[in-house]
């Protein structure tokens, strides 16, 4: 028992080292890139930290941004742990966002807020789950690669959302094609006296719940078995096609929930050209955390700081706004290298 505990804490320390080491190296490499671009890296990181983390309004924006990102992360963790590469989160997100944005103002006129908001969240999740049904069935019963089909469904989903806004749900009162704006009073409540949306709470609950379900329950173990070794799942008598469809449903529903939360909590409406592409942005974060829910929370927070702070740093220093993505990309490369070195070291140890 004692031995197991020490190895476990050693494993935790190693995991932390393997998560934080690459972050430090990536920030350093990012600094070198900034130097090469003629930007003072200290100033850049200073603005990032100052705006994204240290100023009250910035921190609140960071935390609010985390809500949908965490939900997307939960969506990806469910799918990836089950070995299903649902990369169609952006289409699922956007269709859910449009559904919620269309339904909420319409319902708000007739029903109390406490009923409208949950109803719209469920609606968003349901629409997204429905959108994933085709790739799910194709994967479950025909073995068709879901990476391709979900990416294709994203193209269709983004276009469909666009069309819906322009032709069906368009707010006649505005010139820009967008849905009717949900009054601030009818949006998701804010936390305490801050501007942080309660979407953050929903996101945190979702990630932790997904983490616990995947690691502590029979259902989660079934999904992990399918993901780690489909042959063994079949051998153990698990209903692999059924589980596949269920995983798609849960994953897409969480992505849809992210869309609904973003609209009901922050955006208030959806413009026709709006596509934040959160899903593909969160994919590397989930990988960095190795599908661990708590690690994901940390990485999503870090990314939120980077993207909120990066936006303001970009304006002041003339760095492109997507530089935060560059840092995430460097981080991924560094992590890949770390993994490679670790495996080589382990192989040497075995010889």
């Amino acid at each position, binding site marked *: 028992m004692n*031995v*197991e505990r020490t190895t476990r804490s050693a494993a935790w320390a190693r995991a932390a080292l393997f998560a934080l080491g690459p972050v430090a190296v990536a920030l350093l490499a990012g600094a070198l890139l900034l130097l090469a671009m003629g930007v003072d890296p200290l100033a850049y990181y200073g603005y990032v930290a100052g705006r994204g983390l240290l100023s009250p309004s910035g921190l609140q924006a960071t935390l609010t941004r985390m809500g949908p990102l965490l939900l997307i992360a939960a969506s990806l963790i469910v799918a990836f742990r089950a070995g299903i590469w649902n990369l169609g989160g952006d289409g699922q997100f956007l269709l859910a966002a449009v559904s919620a944005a269309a339904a909420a103002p319409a319902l708000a006129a007739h029903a109390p807020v406490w009923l409208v908001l949950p109803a719209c969240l469920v609606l968003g999740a349901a629409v997204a789950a429905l959108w994933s049904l085709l790739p799910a069935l194709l994967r479950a019963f025909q073995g068709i690669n879901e990476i391709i089909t979900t990416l294709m469904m994203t193209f269709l989903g983004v276009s469909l959302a666009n069309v819906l806004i322009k032709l069906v749900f368009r707010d006649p009162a505005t010139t820009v094609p967008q849905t009717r704006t949900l009054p601030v009073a009818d949006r998701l409540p804010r936390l305490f006296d801050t501007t942080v949306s309660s979407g953050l709470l929903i996101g945190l609950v979702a990630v932790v719940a997904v983490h616990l379900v995947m690691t*502590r*329950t*029979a*259902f989660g*173990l*079934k999904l*992990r*078995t399918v993901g*780690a*070794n489909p*042959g*063994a799942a*079949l*051998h*153990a*008598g*698990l209903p692999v096609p059924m589980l596949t469809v269920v995983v798609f449903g849960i994953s897409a529903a969480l992505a849809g929930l992210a869309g609904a939360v973003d609209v009901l909590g922050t955006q208030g409406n959806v413009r026709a050209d709006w596509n934040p592409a959160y899903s593909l942005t969160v994919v590397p974060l989930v990988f960095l955390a190795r599908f661990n829910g708590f690690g994901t929370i940390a990485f999503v927070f870090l990314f939120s700081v980077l993207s909120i702070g990066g936006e303001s740093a970009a304006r002041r220093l003339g760095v492109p706004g997507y530089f935060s993505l560059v840092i995430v990309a460097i981080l991924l490369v560094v992590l890949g290298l770390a993994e490679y070195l670790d495996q080589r070291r382990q192989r040497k140890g075995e010889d």
Partner: protein
Amino acid sequence: MVGSSVSGATAREAVVSLRGVTKRFPGVVANDRVSIDFRPGEVHVLLGENGAGKSTLVAMLAGLQRPDEGGIVVGGEPIDISSPRKALDLGIGTVFQHSMLVPSLSLVDNFILGGPWWKRPDRAGAAERMRARAESIGVRLDPFALAGSLSLGERQQAEIVRALMRGNRCLILDEATAMLTPRDAEQLGALMCRLAAGGLAVVFITHKLDEAIAWGDRISVLRRGRNVASLGPEDLKAGDVAAVTAGLVRTMFGADAADGTRGPEGRRRATPAGPVVLAAGDLAIDDDAVPVSGVGFTIRAGEILGIAGIDGNGQKQLAEALAGQRPIRAGSLTLNGRPIDRAGVGERRALGLRYVTDDRLGEGTVGPFSVATNLVLKQIGEAPFWRKGVEQPAAIADHARRRVGAFDVRTPGVGTPVARLSGGNIQKVLLARELTGTAEAVVFAKPTYGLDVRNTHATRGRIREAAEAGCAVLLISTDIGELLELADRIAVMSRGRIVGTVDNDADARRRIGELMSGTTQ
């Protein structure tokens, strides 16, 4: 070591010689003191079952693996073949079972892939050399054809030409006919004989007897990593084909007296007269490669029915269909009188049917999962390991510790990922999982495949215990010695059918050999 004691004549003649080569992997001895000489001008066949150690031997000759003990002598000098490049430089060319050509490139581009990157590739020159080399061995080859557009036989010819362009002393063909149509295989055989006639040492690896006899000048039989028999030209050309075949079957599958793993022959105990537990009638199972049809048997409580046969004759399909992993197209299957041919895997398991798969890492276990989790992998969600769907780690670990103790699994802990264990211990984990609880009938698929002597012994003990505890046991094995040691009756499977069933008496070995080599058909 042995090198100096070998008579001068053979040492000079051999191009490549293995001298007491031993190679071990965790829990498995792949090659055990193998000594073989490969002479120029001969087709030397390495014959053996899957897992007999042929591929490891090839890997060492090709520079992919290095022997743990013993050495390889090339052209009279002991040489360390440290890399594939070194092997090629020594003139040893290897054609592997699976095509190593890039399908989207032309043959000539495939051939010059390994060239220095800073030089402009000399396509025309290479194509000319290819064409000339191909012609010299009587093969027609279009250097500019896309590799992917060629038939498997043509691709293989191209790979042989490529091997010959680098290595011209010794050509190794690893399971070369496994993927070929009979006609392509026939051509390959003729080509091998031509190459040997031209002075090359050809090493041909196969598990097909007829090919070995038809094309081989010399045959070495590998069994459990050892070279158990060698037949020279005099043996092959003298006897008639049937006699040689029967002799080879015996050596391949365990008639060899030097094999220490074999127990007493013929089960002397009376055949159990308990009730029929597992009964199959006229089973038909669909499969692209080996469809199974007309398979029927009954197994009583406490009885062990052996299924003998060369690997790949429908044994796996049968086992999977019995376990419920593969649909049964027609026929009946009952367990204790209850039809189960439409039941799912879980339902059959719940009724007491167990399947110990031979694909231990591919489907038997989930490598990265802990030993403890793997032990309950077929009971996910069941009490006491899960309550209301929530995992009970203490119960699972407890169960694992008891199983690990009872089945003598050597593992650092129950939390260790199962893939870290040796093959023998992974097998013990599987046995612990399948033989725990109320097993009524157990299907063992090649239960000692790839295991070392000690683990083989332990596994056979478990099989015997299961039968003695009243289980109906179906034992699928490619090792006749094992079947003779354990089974009450032995059925022989060939091309998806059961071609005969014999009682395990003193004469069983001969009759099984006849059924397997088809001489009684």
